[in-house]
């Protein structure tokens, strides 16, 4: 249900680090009015952002910008948790005490757009950036040709690796998917003395990481045919990709077949991992001082997941967030003004420094400075997204994809499992 960087719920530590300068005043609900005296009779705009993906100093910046431009208006800021967000939005957006501006995970947005929970911003699209906005986030924000969800930030997965393990095993950075798989298997063999070592850490439930293999070999999750969805996981291309995943899990991974990726940085820090696939901010989580391993900082490299031909990248799953104005907002025009601040260049550029991608193509050039950031920008340039349906949230909630992968990781027949998943996905997407 959570989008990729959103999956960051666990990665809060990493981002808190980045925000360390002002962490002391990050009290969580910083409803603030800097000049203090303007509250009498003033209007308020309620802003909800999720997790720690947006650090407090960025919120403070946006609040200050907005309140300077709109004297007498106070921004009431509340931080929500990614876990349980859909439930919370379902009840709060339909109540008469709805927040004005909310952040939605890009895989969650369409359900609320279809339900009529969000304010139509179609005529504001050009003003917000138009074609400069990241296409796949615009797709997530569009339902029935109407534009509701404004791209907020994005993230794509890249491969992080132990440079020292590569050196010891005499390996080079792989340039094709085949080399990637071979490098993983070679690492696992070279480190056979480490119990549970993974050349490529690939736990069974990690479906975000399995999608690039499906896409690269020409497969898809589902395609739309008129009004109905046709699930494609059992198509020849998808099956080929899933077989590759199964092989990696069997030959290169030592991760739990039914586990997920949330604790992967701990295994990485224990020296049990050669490569792992993770969003750009994962590096921050790995080297966090609380339960990570800052001492490894110098021996971690990053590259985008390669494609089947040298010099190409495999399509990455693009995660991210959209901002929306609630349909129940008392003053949608004012709420929109706040959205404008949150998507302004000055604000968006700060995301790049955090290892997230700004929501505008023109700002992607500003992403750089680190290997991880550059790898992410390269991966995002060739990125794909889940089927664009308001019922997709149901597919995630029913755990069809992780269940299929857990079975595949356990050695089950790929074609049979894919056919079974297709049936479930079609039932869910077609209602």
């Amino acid at each position, binding site marked *: 249900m959570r989008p990729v960087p959103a999956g960051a719920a666990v990665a809060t530590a990493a981002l808190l680090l980045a925000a360390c300068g002002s962490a002391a005043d990050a009290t969580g609900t910083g409803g603030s009015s800097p000049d203090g005296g303007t509250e009498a009779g003033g209007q308020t705009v309620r802003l909800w952002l999720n997790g720690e993906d947006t650090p407090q100093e960025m919120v403070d910046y946006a609040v200050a910008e907005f309140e300077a431009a709109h004297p007498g208006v106070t921004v009431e800021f509340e931080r929500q948790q990614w876990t349980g967000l859909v439930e919370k939005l379902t009840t709060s957006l339909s109540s008469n005490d709805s927040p004005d501006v909310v952040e939605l995970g890009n895989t969650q947005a369409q359900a609320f757009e279809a339900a009529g929970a969000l304010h139509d911003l179609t005529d504001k699209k050009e003003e917000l950036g138009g074609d400069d906005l990241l296409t796949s986030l615009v797709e997530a924000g569009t339902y029935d040709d109407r534009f509701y969800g404004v791209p907020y930030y994005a993230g794509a997965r890249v491969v992080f690796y132990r440079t020292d393990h590569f050196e010891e095993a005499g390996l080079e950075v792989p340039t094709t998917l085949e080399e990637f798989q071979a490098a993983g298997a070679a690492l696992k063999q070279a480190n056979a003395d480490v119990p549970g070592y993974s050349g490529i850490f690939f736990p069974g439930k990690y479906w975000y990481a399995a999608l690039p293999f499906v896409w690269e070999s020409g497969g898809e999750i589902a395609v739309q045919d008129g009004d109905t969805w046709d699930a494609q996981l059992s198509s020849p291309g998808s099956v080929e990709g899933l077989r590759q995943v199964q092989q990696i899990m069997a030959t290169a991974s030592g991760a739990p077949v039914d*586990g997920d990726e949330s604790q992967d940085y701990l295994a990485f820090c224990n020296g049990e991992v050669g490569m792992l696939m993770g969003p750009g901010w994962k590096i921050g989580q790995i080297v966090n001082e609380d339960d990570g391993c800052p001492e490894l900082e110098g021996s971690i490299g990053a590259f985008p997941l390669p494609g089947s031909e040298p010099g190409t990248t495999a399509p990455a799953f693009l995660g991210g967030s959209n901002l929306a104005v609630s349909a129940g907002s008392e003053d949608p025009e004012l709420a929109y003004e706040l959205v404008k601040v949150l998507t302004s260049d000055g604000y968006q550029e700060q995301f790049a420094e955090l290892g997230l991608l700004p929501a505008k193509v023109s700002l992607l050039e500003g992403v750089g400075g680190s290997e991880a950031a550059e790898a992410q920008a390269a991966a995002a340039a060739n990125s794909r997204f889940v089927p664009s349906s308001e019922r997709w949230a149901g597919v995630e909630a029913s755990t069809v994809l992780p269940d299929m992968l857990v079975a595949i990781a356990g050695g089950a027949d790929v074609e049979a499992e894919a056919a079974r998943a297709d049936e479930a996905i079609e039932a869910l997407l077609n209602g």
Partner: protein
Amino acid sequence: MPVSTPVVPGTASPVPGAPPGRRRPARSARSGGPALPYLLLLPATVVLGAMLAWPLVRLVLLSVREFGLAQQFGQPAAFVGLDNYARILDDPQFWAVLGRTVAFCGVTVALTMVLGTLVALLMDALGRGLRLLVGIGLMLAWAMPPVSATIVWQWVFDTRYGLVNYLLTASGAGDFRGHSWLADPVSFVAVAALVVVWMGVPFVAFTLYAGLTQVPREVLEAAQIDGAGPWRRFRSVTVPYLRPLLAILTALSVLWNFRVFTPVYVLQAAGGSARDTNLVGVFAYRISIGENRFDVGAAVAVVMVVLTLALTAVYLRQMARQEDV
């Protein structure tokens, strides 16, 4: 101890004997003003109705309408009759989930009752200090929030760093490094059952221990003099005294374990395959909240309520019958 012998038949008569004496004044009050008792019942009925009946009515109403996210945001909810029920009854997954839940409930209730009774007997037999120690241990297990308890057990059974795998490997029982207890549906459900029983035993043990202190020592002594061994004394003296308690505890455990949610949901997040390990409580949640099919989820919940009532009715009736005897 010649005194103890007549007590045995005597214990049966005072209990049924007492109520008739008390009932008489009640009857005369009724003849005085027939409306008064009902009037006095009214406040409690209103409170119970608002707190219990109304949500249930809402649930039933929801289950016969089309109600998804769009309806939550104001679109009219069409009446669809029993369509939602037809949908779940047609779904083979629902039947699999239901069968799994009934089996899970049966096994965990049996284990909880047996272990709870054994712990209660242990407490009864222990000296003061040790009993206090056992009591504190039970209290701590009972006071632990279900989510925390499940997460601790999940760590114990963790694939990579779990205590169980470590101990099994160290004790030479085989190579359990990297063994996933949650990957196989059967061992997944076994771990979930362990958590549920672990959380359920303290309440049963405390209640039965309180019941045990009420079993007259004279009767047990008399039975012992008559030559009854420990098992015979337990079966023929202790259990009859505890029967109403046992019935209520079993009914309550059935209620709780049938709709168990937290352990299964938390363990599914940690490992295993949700498809093969859903119990009906989690299943209803995934449909309502995850898929936003509040209508179908409500239908599952109604079926759950009916089944729970049916399961517990058996015990409650049995209990009522025993009081008549």
